[in-house]
Every structure is written in structure tokens, then in C-alpha cells.
């Protein structure tokens, strides 16, 4: 998307935050099954200082993803996360909608 629109341009936001000296991680929905609220390609950007933009679900797993993002910021190692009804953790973190999704988390820079 372009700078002339304010569509959900998470990469632009992430780039801006990085430009301000923040450590940034980007989480991307890479696969979905069932009634996942956000389609593949949806992104969430998180900074070490706690700023968050975008979403990878209807708010159910953002907290858990942000937690993993902090690890990725520290280690630099990307992570591929599975959330779903077959995964007990999904219920713990609140993905009660019955969907399943994979989220890829990477550090920027």
C-alpha cells in the first residue's frame, strides 16, 4: 500500500519504528484453517519498548505472539508458531474461535 493511504500498512510502521532506533519484530499469519479471523498475510509489529501495530487474530493470540516476538528480538532467531484447537496452548491463550493458524515471527534488521 502507499503512503497516501492509511490502510493497514504494518511494514511501513515497522520501518518507521526501526528508523527511530527501536528493536522491532514482525509476526505474519502464514497459513489458516477454519474460521480464523485474519487472512494469511496479516501482520503484527511489536517493539521491545512495547508498541504494537496490526493484528494476527481477533485479539485472541496477540499477547502470546508478542511474548514470542520479545524472545525473537533478543535471539534473532525466527520462529514458526502453531495455534489451533488441537493445541492445548491455543485454548490457554484464548483462540476460542475454533480456527487454526500458523504465525511466523522474525526480527527486523
Amino acid at each position: 500500500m502507499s503512503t497516501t493511504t492509511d490502510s493497514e500498512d504494518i511494514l511501513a510502521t515497522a520501518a518507521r519504528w526501526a528508523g527511530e532506533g527501536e528493536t522491532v519484530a514482525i509476526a505474519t499469519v502464514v497459513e489458516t484453517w477454519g474460521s480464523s479471523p485474519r487472512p494469511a498475510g496479516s501482520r503484527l509489529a511489536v517493539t521491545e519498548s512495547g508498541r504494537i501495530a496490526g493484528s494476527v487474530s481477533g485479539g485472541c493470540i496477540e499477547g502470546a505472539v508478542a511474548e514470542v516476538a520479545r524472545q525473537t528480538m533478543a535471539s534473532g532467531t525466527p520462529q514458526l508458531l502453531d495455534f489451533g484447537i488441537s493445541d492445548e496452548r491455543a485454548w490457554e491463550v484464548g483462540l476460542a474461535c475454533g480456527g487454526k493458524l500458523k504465525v511466523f515471527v522474525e526480527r527486523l534488521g
Partner: protein
Amino acid sequence: MKADLLERLMAARAAKTPLALLTRLPDGAQALLPGDDVPAALAAEAEAAIRADAARNVTIGNETWFIAPENPPLRLIIVGAVHIAQALVPMALPLGFAVTVVDPRRAFATGERMGDRVTISSDWPDEAMVALKPDARTAVVTLTHDPKLDDPALEVALRSPAFYVGSLGSRKTHAKRVARLTEAGLSEAEIARIAAPVGLDIGAVTAPEIAVSILAQIVSARRGGPKKRAEA
């Protein structure tokens, strides 16, 4: 994601070039197309993702790649810098549209009325439309009520690949418009593309309500109409 790759991605976006970001899972190796060298089968999948404007996963050999296409923004061309246009602009931007407002009446087409995040054209609508070249990612809506302004814009829009063409006016106004456009040589099929009366029928009364109904209709046209809930 490496900083230089993000920089290249942002530059391609600024140049309004369609591109695809490829990420190998789970290790996160990345490539940007066009530009980087990748196997032909993967490049073909990336091109298909760009055309479909939808992300996809592909497994080629023993590698899984996530492909995220990045297309230039959708465009909305509004003919008539009228009150409804003032309501449409701030709602269209977060839907991902780059907005152009066309109105040769300079008293209406001002930055003060339309805001600073739109492109304003004071050209005559037919000239403006020819210059803007509506494509398959463009929606056009005419709002002036004035045949001198709406009709020339419609004549160009209806012969373009624009995915949506809407025109404000009552059934009676539209019937007269159909007669004029027929007289002007447009085919029945071309004229039938006009969404009129414009917008989804939600009983809209105020300018912002009419803007909601128009944008709902545009989103529906873009996303392929109502989907059965059972499929979701």
C-alpha cells in the same frame, strides 16, 4: 527480515511496482520479486500470487515458502467535490484506496474541503479520466448530479476495466442518464455496469451514511459479493 530488504520493498511500493515477498519456512530466508534470483517454479507462484492479490503457501521440492504479494493501492476516483465526497474520502483511505477527486469547479475542489490526503484534479472529467486511466483495481463514482460533469466521466469509465462504476441519482435521474448515454453510443452492456441508484440499500439519508452504502457496495464488488456464512 533484513533492513536492506525492507528498504527495497518500501522503494518498490513508493514506485507503485507490484512485488512479492517470499519467506522460506521455518528458517526465514527471504527474497523479493522482481529483483532476486529464485527457481522458476517459485517465481511463477509469486507471479500468480500477485495476480490473485492473495498470499499463499507453496511447497517446491522439500522447501516451503510463504508468498506475500504487495500490489499498488486500490484507487477510488470521485467525480464531484460535493458534500458526499467529503464524507467518502476519510472512509475510503483506511480501506486501502488512494483517492482522486475530480471537479473542474474550483470553488468545490479545494484542499480545505477534501483534505490533504487526496489528489485533486480540476480538469474536465473526460480529460481527467483519460489521464487517470482507470484499471481493474480502480473504482469510479460520480456524484455531481450534473450531466455535463457526470456523463463525460461515465463514458470513459464504462469503457475502462474499472471494477466498479457508480453514479448518484434517483431512479428517474438514472433513466434520463441511460437515455443520454445510449444516445452517446454506449452499449446496453456498458450502461448496465453502472451501479444506480448508487450504494447498497441501507436506507442511507445523511452524507456519511450514503458514503458507507457506496463503500460497502465497492467492497462487495471487489471481494466478489456476499459469501455464504456456512463457507466461513
